[in-house]
C-alpha cells in the first residue's frame, strides 16, 4: 500500500466518531456495542487471569479474592459480563457472515429512495437477536445469582 502523507489532524473525529449513534441506524449501534463489549471483555479477561492466578498464593488468597464477586455489586458486574459476552458472540457470528459476503444481497441498479441492500432486514434481525439473547442471558444470570 502506498504511503500516504498525514495531514494535520484538523477536524478528524477520532474516538468521538464512535460515540455518534443517532441517525446512522442499528448497524452503527451494533458497531458501537461490539467495540464497547470487546474492550470491556478484554479488561474482564485480564482481571479474570489475575483472579485465577491468586491461587498460587494459597487457598485463602483465592477465596478472599473470590468473595469480591459474592457481593451485590459483584453479582451485578457478573451479569454485565454475561450480557456483554452473549452480545459480542452472537453479533460476532453475524459479522463473520457479513465479512464473507453472506446475507448482504447482490449488487444491482439502485432506485430512489436508495435502500442499501447491505443494511437489509437480515442484518437488522441479527442485531436484534443478539440484543434480545443478551438480555435473556442477563435475566437468566440474574435469577441464578440473586435467586433463592
Amino acid at each position: 500500500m502506498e504511503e500516504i502523507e498525514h495531514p494535520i489532524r484538523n477536524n478528524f473525529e477520532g474516538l468521538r466518531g464512535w460515540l455518534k449513534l443517532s441517525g446512522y441506524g442499528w448497524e452503527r449501534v451494533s458497531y458501537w456495542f461490539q467495540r464497547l463489549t470487546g474492550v470491556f471483555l478484554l479488561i474482564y479477561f485480564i482481571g479474570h487471569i489475575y483472579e485465577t492466578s491468586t491461587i498460587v498464593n494459597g487457598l485463602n488468597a483465592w477465596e478472599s479474592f473470590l468473595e469480591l464477586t459474592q457481593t451485590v455489586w459483584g453479582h451485578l458486574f457478573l451479569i454485565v459480563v454475561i450480557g456483554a459476552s452473549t452480545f459480542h458472540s452472537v453479533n460476532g457470528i453475524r459479522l463473520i457472515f457479513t465479512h464473507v459476503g453472506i446475507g448482504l444481497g447482490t449488487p444491482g441498479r439502485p432506485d430512489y429512495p436508495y435502500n442499501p441492500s447491505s443494511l437489509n432486514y437480515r442484518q437488522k434481525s441479527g442485531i436484534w437477536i443478539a440484543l434480545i439473547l443478551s438480555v435473556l442471558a442477563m435475566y437468566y444470570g440474574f435469577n441464578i445469582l440473586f435467586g433463592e
Partner: protein
Amino acid sequence: MSNNDNKIEDKIKLKVYRENRGQNSKSYYDSFEVPYKRWTTVLDALLYVKGYIDPSLAIRYSCRMASCGSCGMKINGIPRLACYTKISELETSTIECEPLGNFPIIRDLVTDFSLFYKHHKNIQPYIQSTESVETAAEEKTYSYNQSPQDVDKYLQFSYCIKCGLCYSACPTVGTDLRFPGPQALAQLYRYFADTRDESKNRLNIVDDRHGIWRCHFAGSCSKVCPKGVDPALGIQLLRSYMLGVSKNNKKQAEKIEVNLD
C-alpha cells in the same frame, strides 16, 4: 404544486459553523433567520444567507442537483448533501450546518479533500488492460462485449460522485487516516468486478493492516450515501474474494473489432 405551497413562508433558524483556518481565527456558530417554503433546500437557505445577510460565508457548491457532490456537509450532525436535503423534511426549528467530519477545515463549511482523493487515486481507479485497446499501428479499434449481467456487477458502484459523505460518516476513518475509507474501497471493488479490467495486483493495494481489514461494517457509509452506491456491500464482497470464500471466476470481456469505415 398548489397555490398554498407558494404562499406559506415560514422561517427557519440556521446555525452555521464559522472558522477561518487561514487567519487562525477561533471557531464559532453564527445564527441566521431564513425564510423557506416546502421545497427549499439547505443549500438554498445557505445561498440566501450568502446573498442577503452575510456574503463572507464560505460554502462549496456547483450543480444544485446531487450530481457533483460539492455541497457535502454535516446537517444536524449527519453528513448530507445540502442541495439534496429539504428543510421541511428535517422537521426541526433549528438547522445546524457544520463542515464534514474527518476532512480538514479550510474555512466555514469548506473542507480539504486532498487526502480523500489521494486514497481514491491510490486504488488505481481506471480500467487496466494488458494490451492497448486502440492499436494505432494496426489502425484497428476494439470495443468490449459485456452482458447486462456483467454490467450489473459494478454499475451501482460506478454511480459514486465522490461527495465524501461516506468518508465523513465512517468511524474507522476518524481513528486511522491510512485507512482508504469506504469510497476508495468500494471503487476498488467496482474495477475488480468489471470484466474489462485485467489488473492482477489491484487487491494487493488494500491487503494491509490499515487497508480493507480495518472495516468493521458499521454500515454508516451506505446509510448516508446520496446515490445508492452502498459502499459497505462492495467492501464486504471484496473482502469475501480476498479471504478466498468467493471464487474469482471473472471472465474477461471479449474484445470485438470495430470497423470505423
